[in-house]
């Protein structure tokens, strides 16, 4: 008889429903309620996906580093921190990819080109590749502890790229525009409902991240348990052989 285990709990189900509602409202707000930009027209609506995506990616990679730091510094070496780090990085990679694709399409419509090798775009592409490498390093084999240790070190180094990506528009002359809401002079550069829609995008994408993270971490725990069961079964077989 096979048993099935779900990664859902009543709390995550509620979070899932709330996320679905929040994302639905974002779609309505982004496509219908918010006005066009005076220069970009409807193209500006790309912003409501592009900016929240990179925000979630920063959040995810930051959390990966935080969980890795907790794993390394905590004597108990609890693997839950490693699994949260891995799950968070996977979601981060997904959202950087979304940000790169939407940014490229937005760039074609506003700049007139899909891609330029400017500091912001290049550093974001580099961030994406770094975390693909991180995910590959997690799958290099060995014990769970070996996996956790080597990926924690890599995560703590990789997170240093985030300030470089974010401040690249201030450090270099770039085609990419400077920050509109995280401006160093703290001057908001978005008209009323555009700002609200962008803020709503950040909230709903963060909720989506939380929902995905919980489920992915639980799935990883189940995967590790399956791997452990395989090992237990092999040891049991050897014990049986030895007893004969």
């Amino acid at each position, binding site marked *: 008889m096979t048993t099935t285990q779900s990664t859902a709990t009543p709390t995550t189900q509620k979070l899932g429903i709330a996320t679905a509602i929040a994302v639905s409202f974002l779609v309505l707000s982004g496509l219908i309620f*918010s*006005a*066009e*930009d*005076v*220069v*970009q*027209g409807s*193209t*500006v609506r790309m*912003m409501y996906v592009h900016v929240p995506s990179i925000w979630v990616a920063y959040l995810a990679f930051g959390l990966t580093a935080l969980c890795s730091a907790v794993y390394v510094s905590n004597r108990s070496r609890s693997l839950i921190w490693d699994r949260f780090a891995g799950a968070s990085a996977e979601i981060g990679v997904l959202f950087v990819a979304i940000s790169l694709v939407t940014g490229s399409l937005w760039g*074609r*419509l*506003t*700049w*007139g*080109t899909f891609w*330029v*090798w*400017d*500091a912001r775009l*290049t550093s974001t*592409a*580099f961030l994406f*590749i*770094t975390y*693909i*490498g991180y*995910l*590959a*390093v*997690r*799958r*290099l*084999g060995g014990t769970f502890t070996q996996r956790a240790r080597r990926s924690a070190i890599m995560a703590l180094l990789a997170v240093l790229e985030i300030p470089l990506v974010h401040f690249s528009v201030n450090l270099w*002359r770039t*085609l990419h*525009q*400077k*920050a*509109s809401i995280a*401006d160093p002079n703290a001057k908001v*550069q*978005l*008209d*009323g*409902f*555009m700002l609200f829609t962008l803020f709503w995008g950040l909230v709903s994408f963060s909720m989506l991240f939380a929902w995905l993270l919980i489920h992915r971490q639980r799935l990883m725990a189940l995967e590790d348990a399956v791997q452990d069961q395989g090992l237990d079964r092999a040891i049991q077989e*050897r*014990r049986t*052989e*030895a007893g004969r």
Partner: protein
Amino acid sequence: MDLTPRPVTDAESRAQNRRRRWAPMIIVALALVAGGVVVSQFLTSAIDYYCNVDEVGVRDGCVGQRRIRVQGIVVENSLKQTNGVTEFSLVFQDKTLRVQYQGDPGGVFQECIPVVAHGRVVDGVFDSDRIEVKHTNQYVEKNKTRFEATKETAACSQLPG
């Protein structure tokens, strides 16, 4: 109890194990190569100096007929498009530069918008073969403008002063 690893006899399991072992190593190698390509592309593109209009002919790297990138704002009423050639003036810190480009720049190109032009200065005119529109970080709702600006001049209504 004998704990020495047992050889996998099943051919399919052996192939699966091999794939499982090699796939992450290949991805790590590909990531390293891709990272190298990205950095080298960035450095190659950085060979063309990035100059503001006021630096052309003044700043080191922005002088002579070498290939450069020039950044400035398209001057209002300077845009002309005739026989597939786009001509306009760029301004930055009160210095202007006449630009000539074969074709339609694309994007949201219009007067009063910041652009980056790639090319070289020939007889005082910037001969460009690539134009990139540099959108500002200001977003203004269309219906909030005091007058109904046409698409072509919408950026002019955003200029300070």
